[in-house]
């Protein structure tokens, strides 16, 4: 393949991007209770805004450079250098990480602002913003690192913040358990990530992106080492990005405050796996087996999670499974070699899914206050208690509806372009089964999202008492909703396909990052270029599928609301299975968690350690003691005996030596 030398430019300001949230975290964290509630949120948000400003500056700097040389670096210091292993704390901003930092700081800033309103009155607001800033810091390290190890620092760091924020309301044991589950499941993935790094170092002698990719580019396709590295990395990704079989922590993670779900469990952290796979696109392109696995797992997760989403009543659970499903899409894209499309969807998804979560937060906030006011103890997240909220929460409704249209893939909205790009690329790659699964999941998505909208906002308010009603959230919450709604519409316009007369700027933007992978794929030759007619037909199919999903949702929940009950009755066992999320948690508990715990407790500890090893030692000791007692008959207590023996021994030995 052709080799172009990339010229990197040194930048002295990159460190500021993670430094601002770190500073915010330190200030709020060290001030602690001395910090005022109001200033904590402003400080944290301000830091995010500064970070966003630097990101924008960097982005424009990049934009002004020739396409092939868009790369800014900054090295701070050598983190570790032992023998032939050396790792720097250094950052790399290229088209890929530039998009990531804009999403993280931009969406992150909006969510920080929203949180000021959402968390108002909570007694631990300062701690909340400390964690949230810390999260932003680690997330930025993750995407800005110029090597795998530093990225891994961010990778585990965001996991930590996720743990801390899921269990933020620590008095609720269920939330604490959910947080721990997230951390432990992620660690299983991280185990894979770590092994991938070891093997990478053993194979390429480095963990720096630049060196690894340059070395890999020269190796043949399908080597065992690269296949193993990419599969292990992907194991890490399935943990962090909640894919089969490690997705189980994400739905439980909804226990955290809703803005956290929006930021960490929808827009940013959970997409880290996609980022990592896309970042390693050269390695994946050299490992067709791994690509197949990524595509397969992605497609399977997209469908699997979507089916669970059909039957949930908790509004956040619907969104959680939807996130798992959408992340599946992104992996599906990477798996068919369309890394750019995957990251494009990552970006649009960050807008509309953050908006959906914040919207649901606004609903929950309103329901919570309503129940508080009326003294009711119903579940403020259960959609069966909602309905008709459209007239009480107009801004929330409209923005939520826009996000729903975006995720459903209605033409013109951001999600349409990114999702369609993925479906088209999977069709084009010739993996028709993958495409078909993706299209089916898209239909299911349209259905369950409209189901949520209808149950929440349309019809009659089901918790009404005649005189009170929920109220719209304050401006500090609705303004971020509006900004995200705008982004959910126009965010996709940077990727309007050529066949629709667009410029697909984002594809060109990513070109330098993904070109090597594309060239490799081209070299492998995947068949002829289908014409634009085919592309339009494929697009039409996805639109029809989406509309069908919406139509059925309308039929079920608006025009003939008696149907769902009949379907449930008819489907019986199947519905129970789906409603209970296929009992995956129960299976893991019975098949993995419980056996390990029981074995450790009853066999390893109480039997082996105490009875066998210790029993043996005590046996020998008792036996010795018994003999000693008989021999000496003088029992003056253990200490003096041993001391005496030791002293005597030393004397004898020394005497013998001197002699």
């Amino acid at each position: 393949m052709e080799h172009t030398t990339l010229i990197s430019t040194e930048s002295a300001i990159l460190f500021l991007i993670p430094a601002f949230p770190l500073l915010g975290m330190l200030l709020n964290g060290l001030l602690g209770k001395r910090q005022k509630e109001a200033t904590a949120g402003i400080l944290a948000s301000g830091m995010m805004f500064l970070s966003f400003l630097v990101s924008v500056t960097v982005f424009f700097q990049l934009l002004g450079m020739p396409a092939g040389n868009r790369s800014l670096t900054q090295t701070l210091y050598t983190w570790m250098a032992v023998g032939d292993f050396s790792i720097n704390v250094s950052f790399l901003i290229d088209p890929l990480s530039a998009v990531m930092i804009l999403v993280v700081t931009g969406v992150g800033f909006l969510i920080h602002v929203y949180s000021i309103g959402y968390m108002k009155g909570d007694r631990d607001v300062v701690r909340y913003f400390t964690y949230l800033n810390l999260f932003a810091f680690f997330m930025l390290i993750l995407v800005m690192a110029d090597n795998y190890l530093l990225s891994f620092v961010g990778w585990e760091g965001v996991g930590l913040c996720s743990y801390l924020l899921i269990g933020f309301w620590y008095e609720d044991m269920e939330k604490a358990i959910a947080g721990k589950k997230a951390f432990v499941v992620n660690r299983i993935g991280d185990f894979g990530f770590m092994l991938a790094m070891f093997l990478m170092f053993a194979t390429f002698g480095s963990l720096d992106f630049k060196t690894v990719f340059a070395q890999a580019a020269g190796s043949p396709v399908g080597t065992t080492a690269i296949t193993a590295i990419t599969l292990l990395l992907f194991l890490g990704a399935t943990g962090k990005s909640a894919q089969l079989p490690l997705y189980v922590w994400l739905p439980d993670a909804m226990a955290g405050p809703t803005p956290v779900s929006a930021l960490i469990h929808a827009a940013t952290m959970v997409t880290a796996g996609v980022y990592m796979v896309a970042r390693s696109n050269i390695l994946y392109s050299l490992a067709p087996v791994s690509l197949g696995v990524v595509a397969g797992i992605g497609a399977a997760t997209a469908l699997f999670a979507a089916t669970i989403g059909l039957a949930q009543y908790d509004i956040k659970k619907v969104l959680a499974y939807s996130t798992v499903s959408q992340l599946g899409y992104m992996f599906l894209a990477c798996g068919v070699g369309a890394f750019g499309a995957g990251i494009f969807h990552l970006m649009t998804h960050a807008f509309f899914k953050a908006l959906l979560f914040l919207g649901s937060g606004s609903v929950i906030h309103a329901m919570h206050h309503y129940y508080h006011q009326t003294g009711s103890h119903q579940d403020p997240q259960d959609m069966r208690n909602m309905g008709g909220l459209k007239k009480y929460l107009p801004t929330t409704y409209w923005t939520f509806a826009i996000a729903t249209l975006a995720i459903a893939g209605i033409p013109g909205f951001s999600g349409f372009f990114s999702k369609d790009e993925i479906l088209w690329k999977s069709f084009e790659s010739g993996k028709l089964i993958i495409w078909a699964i993706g299209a089916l999941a898209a239909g299911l998505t349209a259905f369950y999202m409209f189901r949520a909208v209808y149950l929440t906002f349309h019809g009659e308010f089901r918790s009404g008492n005649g005189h009170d009603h929920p109220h719209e959230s304050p401006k500090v919450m609705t303004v971020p909703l509006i900004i995200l709604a705008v982004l959910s519409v126009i965010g996709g316009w940077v990727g309007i396909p050529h066949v629709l007369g667009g410029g697909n700027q984002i594809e060109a933007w990513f070109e330098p990052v993904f070109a090597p992978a594309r060239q490799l794929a081209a070299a492998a030759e995947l068949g002829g270029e289908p014409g634009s007619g085919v592309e339009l037909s494929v697009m039409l199919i996805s639109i029809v599928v989406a509309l069908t999903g919406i139509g059925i949702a309308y039929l079920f929940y608006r025009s003939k609301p008696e149907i769902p009950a009949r379907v449930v009755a008819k489907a019986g066992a199947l519905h129970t299975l789906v409603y209970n999320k296929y009992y995956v948690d129960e299976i893991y508990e019975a098949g993995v968690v419980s056996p390990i715990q029981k074995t450790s407790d009853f066999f390893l500890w109480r039997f082996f350690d105490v009875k066998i090893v210790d029993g043996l030692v005590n046996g020998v000791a008792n036996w010795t003691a018994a003999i000693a007692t008989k021999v000496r008959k003088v029992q003056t207590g253990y200490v003096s005996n041993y001391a005496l023996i030791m002293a005597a021994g030393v004397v004898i030995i020394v005497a013998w030596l001197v002699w």
Partner: protein
Amino acid sequence: MLSWIIFIPLIGGTVILFLPKENKNLIRGVALATSLLDLALCVPLYTGFNAAQAGFQFVENRPWISALGSSYHLGIDGISFWLILLTAFLGPLCILGSWEAIQKRVKEFHFSFLFLQTGMLGVFCSLDLVLFYVFWEVMLVPMYLLIGVWGGPRRIYAAVKFFIYTMVGSMLMLVAILWLYFNTGDAGSRTFDLLQILQMGKPALQAQMWLFAAFALAFAIKVPMFPFHTWLPDAHVEAPTAGSVILAGVLLKMGTYGFLRFAMPLFPDAALKFAPLICILAIIGIIYGALVSMVQPDMKKLVAYSSVSHLGFVMLGMFALNQQGVSGSIYQMLNHGVSTGALFFLVGVVYDRRHTRMIADYGGLFRVMPKYTTVFIIIALSSIGLPGLNGFVGEFLILLGTFKSNWIYAAFAATGVIFAAVYMLWMIQRVFYGKLDKEENKTLTDLTLREKVVLYPLVVMAVVMGIFPQIFLGKMDVAVQTFLQTMVVSR
């Protein structure tokens, strides 16, 4: 210089013996001043240490028992350097940490503790086998007393168990030392001097095997390696806080240090032959320690078993026999001293208030002890190897090095990282999360100033060692290379 560092604690301890025993604070004050003076002496040690210089520095070599060819030979390299600093660093923290917990026989306690410091520092500085052995054995007595006199209800059992285990190992090591003495060199040139013995060339393989086994057993018990670990949980549970801290923080490292300084360089061929066995035991220790730790109802026992797991990493890295593995191994010794030392202090904090270590007796402490909770979580995370904190650097380098020499070992050992998260976070969940539902816990007070002074330096160390590991790694590089050369020559 080294002599001062070693013997100042003993001098201070002797002074304490002449103080009136009613004046407890005076005794504590003198002990604290002594340990601080010792720590202060480490400053010139730090500035004077030349990281680029191979061999030993600050050497003192005086005739001692000339008849035996044994000399008072002290010296440090990049390996012992840090262990001395660690010992001196933990000293004042331990004394401060026991300020209120120790009320009976205060004088004897501080004498024992300072005496113990001298023994440990001596072990890390000795370059003569007899001198080393003397310090090694001398330490046993104060440690025995610390557990047996100031310990919990089953202290006698625990102390005796500790003593028996350690004595068995020591005896065999003594025999091995003597054999080595009589079988290296001619009658005229017999010596106990480590460096001279190393120069004389190694014994035949058969002999090496026996000698290594004897040394290794002594050290493996101290580490402790699976399956010689059962004295540790008992000793820790019964020991007073300062005893546990110093036991975990420094004493265990004497085992791993013994491998690095004596057992492996003296008998390199045998070490290579034993390497697979030791690595497998180390891996079993990593996983076994973590699994057993997970199901402990007692916080201190949980931390004790986690030590078995962590020390397994240390052993594994050492026997990877490459730069990353060995450096990681030494780094992990320091990490363990900081993190596990801090964990024992932390358990001591609530034990002093509630007189129970049972996890089930707590719950929801976050509400009443937010500062304590934060410190606990940071230290727990450092212990389970969260990147950015100290534990990760050690574990990562160890696994990286191990992977290079045997990837299967590394793959198994790396699972320990998962289990570590389980046992630590599960404990945190049960102690700090949930409702504060027990009446006795509702009145618990957060960290006192004294406790902060003890704990915050440890937190700072955990962070600094995680972010700037090169400060430490850079100083051990040359020593590690020297060690590896000794080992590689025999390959």
